[in-house]
Each structure stands twice: as structure tokens, then as C-alpha cells.
């Protein structure tokens, strides 16, 4: 009998522990999800805050840059020529195109501003940094393929194969032939080879750039073996481009800097030139409009409902309405903005003004509910004391209750703004989703918002934009954390308990 009972108790305690374990697991799963989310986004996004440039010697050719009008010069061409002097082996059209693909089409801004500032540089040779293209940038950041470089351990001979295309690589003795595998790359100066087959005693290779001269002797250490882990067809950088970048890196021409452009430039079709400034300004303008409308309206509505409203049908209706609006999907507010603000009132599309109005309506219930809670928390005795010394009801509310409720109201408002800042769906409806390269200049100019920029970039096929998207998300999350921290600070600093 006692045995049975203790068995039962043990069973019940096991159930207790199990239940408790389920709860802890649920929380652990949630926390793990958040951690994976944040880590994967930071991991993806951090490299986008750095950019790679290469140092090039560029002769500012008077034929390309007119001293009378230096702004209009073709600086991209100068950079391309500077790059070509480093790689004379890029003699064919296809190879030149591959070479030019290494640098960004908009990378000549540094050079341009230097020459414009000092036109006497025309005709001289300068060392300038050139921004790399997005693919070259990703390659150097190691995001396209794994790279291993091994310096050549022995001396080798390169000679053309007899009777067929390609080259034969042998060591100085048959035993010392390079231990290479098909697909590996051999680089030495202007020699760029890809191994096609490895046989005992020798390997065959194909030339990626023309071999001049066709027979070469390379001592140990003069050449290197480069291995790329991702096959050529699966990456955006070709073998020869990779070899050139490796050479630039070995020569110390590659430099890494903080990507200021990301914060100073607007959107661009070229991933390496795109920045979030336009979206950030658009977001700020939009949220400013939302604040300007939602804060006064929300606080006024809260004051009325909490302090003055008689209990009747009309105020019941308003309360039910506010609670319902708080749960209406945000995309419905977009439909409202489209049908009412754009079509009925004829306000401009894509404008922060309209976006702000829509977001104001969206966060209005949040602000009203938070403000009412803050007003309710002020004890009745404050009002009664004011009334007791002869103040009118409005004087009591505006001069005593409202100032005491203000920290709570501000906290609620900031949280509402944080919600507005991260909101995307309603802005899609009212046209704030176009490609806009300019920084918006006012409340009615075409703009986009930061979360919408995230959405737009996430849709682009280029690999570099994946990183940019994550970087834009980091900016967005930093702003949101700052807003929330401000709200928490306000609450901690000014919270009063009666």
C-alpha cells in the first residue's frame, strides 16, 4: 500500500518536473530563435560596413579631362587605363572587359574631386584609390569562395603542348612535378594558368591569358598555386579575375576602409554604390509627419475620454472604435491611404506626407491607449486638490494632471513611433516603394523608408545586396533599440508611484 502510494507520488513529481521542463524549453526555443535571428543578420550585414579599394597609379590625361571643365572628364576611363598598365596581359577584348569588371563604374569620385579641386594635376600621375565592383569586393571579403594560396615549392618549366592547345608543366626532375589538381590555378607575374589534368610526372594546363613567351622557367617561390573552393560556374568572379585580385592583394594594393558611402549615398543599381541615406531621411520625414499628427490628436483624445467624456453612446462608440483600430491589420491602413489620401484628396504618391498621415492613423490607437493609462495613473487627489482651491476642471487637468502624466505619455508615444518606424506594408500601398536614387528634399518629394528599402533590396538577385539588406536591417534595428532605450530611460527616470 505505501509502496503503491510512493510510486504514485514519484510519478506525479516526474510529471511536475516534465511540465516545468516544457515551460523552460518553450522560453529557450524563443530565446534561441531571437539569438539566431540577430546573429545571422549581424553576420550577414557587418561585412557591408567595410569596402575594398585598390590603389592605382593614374595619369590624368589632358585628352580625357578638359582643364576648362574638369568636372566633365571621363575619370572612369583613366582608372581603367591605370588598371590596364598593371595587367598588360589583358590584351583581348574579353580579357579587358573582365579586368574592367573589377572596378566599380562609379568608383572614380575620389579622383574626380581631387582633380576638380586642383586642376594643375592634369597631365600628372597620381596614386588614387579606386572602388572595387561588388563582385570583386565580395571575393576579397571571402564571401564568394574559399581561397588557399600556396607558394610554389619547386622550380617548374612551362612549355606548350605539342600538337594540341595548352601547356605542359613539369618540375626540374620528374619527381618534383607540382602536386596540382585539375581546376587549380597557377600564377606568376603575367602568367595565369588553369590546371586541366594531373598525370604522374607532369600536369597540363590551359592559359587564361596569352603566354609571352610560350616557354618559361620559374624558380621555387616565383610562382604560386591558388585553389578556389567554389567551381567557376557557381561564382560571379572568373578564375582570371580571381588571379588578378590575388596579385593585387599580394602587391599590397588592396585597402579596406569603413564604408561611409553606405550612410551618405542614396539608393543605386550598383550594390557597391548603394546607401541608406535616402531611405533614412525618408523614414525620418515620414515619422516626423506621423508624430506631428498623432501626438496632439492622441493626447487630446485621451484627455477627453479619460477626464471629460460623459458615459454615453457616443463615447462608448469611440472607445470600441479605438480598440478595434488597434487590431486592424496594417495593410488595411494602406488601402485607406490609397483610397482616401491619394485618390480622394489627390495628395502626391510616394510622399512622406501621405506615409506620415497613414502611419499617424496607424499609431493613433497605441498613443491614445498609452496616454489614457498614464492619465489614469495620476491619483484623483491631485485633481481634487486643484478643484478645491478653485481651479476649473480644465485648469486642473491641463496644469496638474497632464504634466504628471507626461512621462507616461512620452513613453507610449516613443513606442508608437518605433512601431511606425518599422512598418512596411501600408507604405507599399501608397507608392513609397519605387527606386529613388535622390535624397528626399521635403515632405512632398518622392521618398522611400528604411524598412521599405530593406524589402526592395532583399528582392534583388545580386549577392552583394543580400549583405546590404542585412546592413540596412542593422541600421533599422539600431534606431529601434535607441528609441526603445529612450522609452525605458524615460520610464525609469520619471516614473512615479503614488
Amino acid at each position, binding site marked *: 500500500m505505501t509502496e503503491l502510494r510512493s510510486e504514485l507520488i514519484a510519478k*506525479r*513529481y516526474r510529471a*511536475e518536473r516534465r*511540465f*516545468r521542463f*516544457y*515551460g523552460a*524549453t*518553450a*522560453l529557450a*526555443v*524563443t*530565446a534561441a*530563435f*531571437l539569438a*539566431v*535571428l540577430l546573429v*545571422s*543578420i549581424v553576420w550577414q550585414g557587418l561585412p557591408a560596413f567595410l569596402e575594398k579599394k585598390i590603389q592605382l597609379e593614374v595619369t590624368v590625361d589632358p585628352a580625357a579631362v578638359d582643364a576648362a571643365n574638369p568636372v566633365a572628364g571621363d575619370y572612369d576611363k583613366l582608372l581603367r587605363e591605370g588598371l590596364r598598365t598593371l595587367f598588360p596581359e589583358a590584351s583581348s577584348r574579353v580579357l579587358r572587359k573582365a579586368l574592367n569588371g573589377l572596378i566599380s563604374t562609379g568608383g572614380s569620385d575620389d579622383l574626380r574631386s581631387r582633380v576638380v579641386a586642383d586642376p594643375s594635376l592634369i597631365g600628372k600621375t597620381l596614386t588614387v584609390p579606386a572602388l572595387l565592383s561588388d563582385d570583386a569586393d565580395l571575393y576579397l571579403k571571402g564571401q564568394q569562395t574559399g581561397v588557399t594560396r600556396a607558394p610554389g615549392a619547386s622550380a617548374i618549366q612551362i612549355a606548350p603542348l605539342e600538337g594540341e592547345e595548352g601547356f605542359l608543366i613539369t618540375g626540374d626532375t620528374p619527381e618534383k612535378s607540382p602536386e596540382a589538381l585539375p581546376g587549380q590555378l597557377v600564377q606568376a607575374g603575367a602568367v595565369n594558368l588553369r590546371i586541366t589534368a594531373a598525370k604522374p610526372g607532369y600536369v597540363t594546363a590551359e592559359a587564361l591569358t596569352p603566354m609571352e613567351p610560350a616557354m618559361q622557367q620559374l624558380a621555387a617561390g616565383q610562382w604560386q598555386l591558388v585553389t578556389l573552393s567554389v567551381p567557376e560556374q557557381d561564382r560571379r568572379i572568373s578564375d582570371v579575375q580571381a588571379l588578378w585580385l590575388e596579385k593585387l592583394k599580394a602587391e599590397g594594393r588592396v585597402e579596406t576602409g569603413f564604408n561611409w558611402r553606405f550612410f551618405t549615398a542614396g539608393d543605386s543599381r550598383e550594390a557597391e554604390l548603394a546607401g541608406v541615406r535616402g531611405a533614412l531621411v525618408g523614414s525620418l520625414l515620414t515619422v516626423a509627419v506621423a508624430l506631428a499628427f498623432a501626438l*496632439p*490628436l492622441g493626447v*487630446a*483624445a485621451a484627455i*477627453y475620454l479619460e477626464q*471629460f467624456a460623459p458615459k454615453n453612446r457616443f*463615447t462608448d462608440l*469611440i472607445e470600441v*472604435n479605438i*480598440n*478595434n*483600430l488597434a*487590431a*486592424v*491589420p496594417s*495593410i*488595411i*491602413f494602406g*488601402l485607406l491611404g490609397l*483610397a*482616401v489620401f491619394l*485618390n480622394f484628396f489627390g495628395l502626391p504618391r510616394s510622399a512622406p506626407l501621405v506615409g506620415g498621415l497613414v502611419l499617424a492613423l496607424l499609431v*493613433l*490607437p497605441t498613443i*491614445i491607449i498609452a496616454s489614457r493609462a498614464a492619465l489614469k495613473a495620476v491619483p484623483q487627489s491631485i485633481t481634487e486638490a486643484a478643484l478645491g482651491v478653485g481651479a*476649473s476642471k*480644465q485648469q486642473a487637468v491641463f496644469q496638474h494632471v497632464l504634466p504628471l502624466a507626461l512621462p507616461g505619455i512620452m513613453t507610449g508615444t516613443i513606442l508608437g513611433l518605433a512601431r511606425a*518606424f*518599422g512598418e*512596411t*506594408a501600408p507604405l507599399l*500601398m501608397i507608392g513609397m516603394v519605387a527606386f529613388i536614387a535622390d535624397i528626399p528634399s521635403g515632405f512632398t518629394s518622392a521618398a522611400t523608408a528604411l*524598412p521599405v528599402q*530593406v*524589402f526592395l533590396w*532583399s528582392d534583388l538577385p545580386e549577392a552583394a545586396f543580400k549583405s546590404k539588406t*542585412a546592413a540596412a*536591417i542593422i541600421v*533599422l*534595428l539600431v534606431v*529601434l533599440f535607441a528609441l526603445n532605450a529612450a522609452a525605458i530611460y524615460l520610464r525609469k527616470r520619471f516614473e512615479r508611484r503614488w
Partner: protein
Amino acid sequence: MFLWTLLLVVLLAAGAYMAGRQRAIALQGAAGVRLHSLPSYHGYLLAAAALIGGLALAIATALAFGVHSPLTAVAAVIGAAIAAVPLYGKDTPDFRARNLFERVVLVVLVLCSGVAVLTTIGIVFSVVWETLIFFRSVSPFEFLLNTKWAPTGTPPSFGFLPLLAGTFLVTFIAIVVAGPLGLLSAIYMAEYATPRLRSVLKPVLEILAGIPTVVLGFFAALVVAPLIRNAGISVGLEVASESALAAGLVMGMMIVPLISSLSDDIINAVPQSLRDGSYALGATKSETIKRVVIPAALPGIVSAFMLAISRAVGETMIVVMAAGLAANLTANPLAAVTTITVQIATLLVGDQEFDSPKTLSAFALGFVLFFFTLFLNYIALRIVQKYREQYD
């Protein structure tokens, strides 16, 4: 331009305040006259009159002549003068400036609270109006009963059943994920966690709640969807690159904080005396929770689930980015589906012609979405009202 006019109106109001206050002070200074209201109320009244009069006429002018017309500034001055000048002459000792001003303030407050009602009317008006126009070209029966959704096809087809199925599928997955996780989290937080652990766990849930859905959508498309796809392929399953499962899982994680915070509040509201009674009968903590606390909190928990479903049905960005556009009528969570919100978003992005059924169908979908979520919210409210146990 109109911003300058607004600034002008504010300046005029400030001027009116100064003028009114000065005049009241001057009157009071003259030989023992005692005004009913404080001088500043005379100022406020004039300022309110100038503000309202100036704004009204300026906005009317802007509507008539365009926002950029310089006439708005002229109108602002005239309007302010018409409204404020007659009051300026009325400063007799028995003039009750404060009472009049407070009445104006009260009217403004009532109007501000009315904005919420106006918003609802605006939503209903816009979705119902465009939906009626839509049903002129597409019969409601086709919309409700057809099983093919192809608004851009030739001929276009507007059967919304695949969208409804997709919405329900994603929502179902989300609730299956979020329901147990959210509820168990809430129970652990409310009943087991020490205050210190609670102070760590609560911010975690709050941070998750504050992450914009576009970020979750990016995560779903970039990390979760490939993960599910690779896992599926490794066990030999056919998985679409944009699957309902990926969107549903991430959406479920989005809803966990909502369910857990609502349930947490409800569980905390169950009186301690009920628990104590259960303990006194020898029940363990988990038995108390399962047999006493949860049944007592059930109406609130059900209503929390209703709100969570309504949130999932209306969620847009996660499904836009992770669930895809293929309108498949399927219950297979590994297939690509589309939802009502995705279709609204894709139909209305870009330039719309407002006479085409394609654009209008988005409003019909909005109509369905709005009233469906409204219905869920109403049910949630009714459950709480009807079944809530009244303690104390």
C-alpha cells in the same frame, strides 16, 4: 508655401494672444475694474479665434486655388481678423473669457477623439465602395466560389478560395507553433520563473515583439526557407523554395510574444486563493496549473488566441517575402502558397488604373480581410465579457 501660411497663422495667433492679454491688463489697471477671467484667458480666447479663423479661410482658399497659391496667406490674415477682432472689442468686466475658451477647448478635444471614428468610417467607406465597383464587373459568386485566382491572366479569374486556403494554412502553422510556445512561456514566466529570471526573459520577448516584420520576412526567406528546403531534400521530399512552412514558422515566432504577454497577464490575474486552495488539497504545482489556473484563465487565453489569429491573418511582410505568389489550392505545407495580404500588396504596388478589376479586386480582398479580423476581434472581446469569472 502652405507651411509658411501655417507659420503665419501661428504668428497671428501669438499676436492675438499678446493683444488680448495686454488689453485685459490695461482694463484691469484702470480704476478698480475686476474682470471675470484672468488676462491670459482673454489672450488665449483671441489666439484660438485667430487660429481657427485663419486656418479655416486659408484651407478653404487652398482647396479653391491650390496649395501653392500665395492667396492662402492673404486668406489667413483676413480669416484671423474676422474671427478675432469682434472679440477684441468685447472685453467688458463681465465678459467670461475663460468659460468661452474652455468650451472651445472641449469642442477641439471631442473633435480629436472623433478622428478614431472617422478613420473607421474611412476604412469601411474605401473598402466597401471599391468592392461594390469590383462586383459590378465580377460577380460575387465567382469571387467566393471559383477555385482559380489569376487576376492578370487572360481571361482574368478572381476566385479567392486559393487565397483563403493559403491564408488559413500559413495561419494554422503559425498558431501550431506559437500556441504551445507562447502559452508554456507564459505559464513558466508567471508561475515558475524567479523575479531575476523574469527580468531577463521579459526583455527577450519584448525585443522579439519589437522586431519589424520585414526583418522577420528577410530571415524567413534567407535562412529558414533554405534550411527547410535542404532538410526536405535530404529526406527525399519535394519542397518549394518559398514554402508555407517557412512563412508559418517565422510568423509563429512573431506571435509568441503576443500570446505569451496576453496569457501572462491573464494568468497573473487569477487570484492566489484559488492556487492556495489547490495546494491545500495536496496538488502539485503543475496539477494546480493544469486543473485550476488554466481553466480559470481559459476565456482570456482563448481571446488571446483569437487576437493572435487575427494578427497572423493580417500579417503581410513575412508572407510577401517568404510564401510566394503562386495561388495553389493546397493543404501541403511544403508547397508555395499565397495569402490575401500578399495579393493585396502585389496588386497595388506600382501604378494602378482604378477602373480595372485587377486593382479593384485588391479592395475586395481588403474588405474580406478587414471584416474577418474585425469578427475575430469581436469574438475575442465577447468571450472575455461573457465567460470571465468575476472574482472578489
